[in-house]
């Protein structure tokens, strides 16, 4: 048949040129491919930052990692948080907090609250499924948590969805491979 000479980087035997689309482009189109990729990344970033601003929490969506809050939340559930300053923290509410020195936030229930007239509070937490309260998890010598340790209060949740995040964190190679493939697809394929 008519094959007017193999062109450059064909994969042998398959005849598939992954850079085929790119080679037919001029400078502007190449720049647009890069921009396209940048815009997808930017959109995701802006949505995340937008959520941060709206909810007032530095991490508005978290994944439950342990079973310490069963039967309310299971490992792999996705939680939506808000952190408005005006909302009081009362016993019985579920909060996500960070202990000083650790970077993984914990989601447990508030069981005791001490409140001063000016609004300062000290509170104690415990996981529903734990035998004892969280004093063992706090910093050395710390017996109470304060408002500044709070990342947010749980407002809603989606079951099971967070398992994807857990799998990707357990197998980071899978995460990078997935991201690389998606990135390559956007960069190399021409948008219509």
């Amino acid at each position, binding site marked *: 048949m008519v094959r*007017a000479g193999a062109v450059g980087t064909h994969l042998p035997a398959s005849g598939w040129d992954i850079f*085929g689309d790119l080679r037919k482009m001029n400078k502007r189109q190449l720049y647009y491919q890069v921009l396209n990729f940048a815009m997808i990344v930017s959109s995701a970033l802006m949505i995340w930052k937008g959520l941060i601003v709206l909810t007032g929490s530095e991490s508005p969506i978290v994944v439950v990692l342990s079973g310490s809050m069963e039967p309310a939340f299971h490992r792999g559930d996705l939680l939506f948080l808000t952190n408005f300053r005006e909302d009081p923290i009362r016993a019985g509410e579920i909060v996500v907090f960070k202990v000083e020195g650790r970077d993984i936030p914990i989601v447990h229930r508030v069981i005791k609250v001490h409140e001063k007239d000016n609004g300062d509070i000290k509170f104690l937490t415990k996981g529903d499924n734990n035998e004892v309260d969280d004093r063992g998890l706090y910093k050395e010598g710390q017996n109470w948590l304060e408002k500044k340790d709070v990342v947010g209060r749980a407002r809603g949740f989606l079951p099971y969805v967070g398992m994807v995040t857990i799998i990707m964190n357990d197998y980071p190679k899978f995460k990078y491979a997935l991201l690389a493939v998606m990135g390559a697809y956007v960069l190399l394929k021409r948008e219509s």
Partner: protein
Amino acid sequence: MAAVSAQGGRSGGGGGSSGAGGGPNCGTGSGRSGLLDKWKIDDKPVKIDKWDGSAVKNSLDDSAKKVLLEKYKYVENFGLIDGRLTICTISCFFAIVALIWDYMHPFPESKPVLALCVISYFVMMGILTIYTSYKEKSIFLVAHRKDPTGMDPDDIWQLSSSLKRFDDKYTLKLTFISGRTKQQREAEFTKSIAKFFDHSGTLVMDAYEPEISRLHDSLATERKIK
């Protein structure tokens, strides 16, 4: 059909750019350095996956562009495309500013700047959508024909096309805007893509180029008659 027999008639190997503008092609080239020349495949026959709708449309669009630019020697105007690129670049700039600011001043202090950047970003996205829907539409080429006498303003030729998903009917519309009278005339054709591609997915310029020329001449001659 017609396309296949044209394919059979072509000799192998040097088929190369035997399509429209075989002559001008050899000389035009890209005028760039050797390395870029070897990488680009502008002048080789276009072979794509015939079942991939977007690849088919892109190759038809590119070939129509080539005909107008190389055969009729019009000059491409990048204004429309540059507009879109600028809007996208500004949006990404807002995103980068938000990222860096938030990194340098961690969350609660960066709230107003973040809010501003996020809102600006989505406003730019809205502007981009309006721009591509109403200003750019499906136009992929804006070309100028310089007036040989240098006195009148340029005539503008615009190409736009459409190919619906999973459909085989390709519509190409050529619009002519006279520089002098600012009048606008259009001509279009709708044909099945099977008329232009052979069974292996190669675009047969011998079948495609006359269509473009016919569209062009129908708009050009009207002008002369007037």
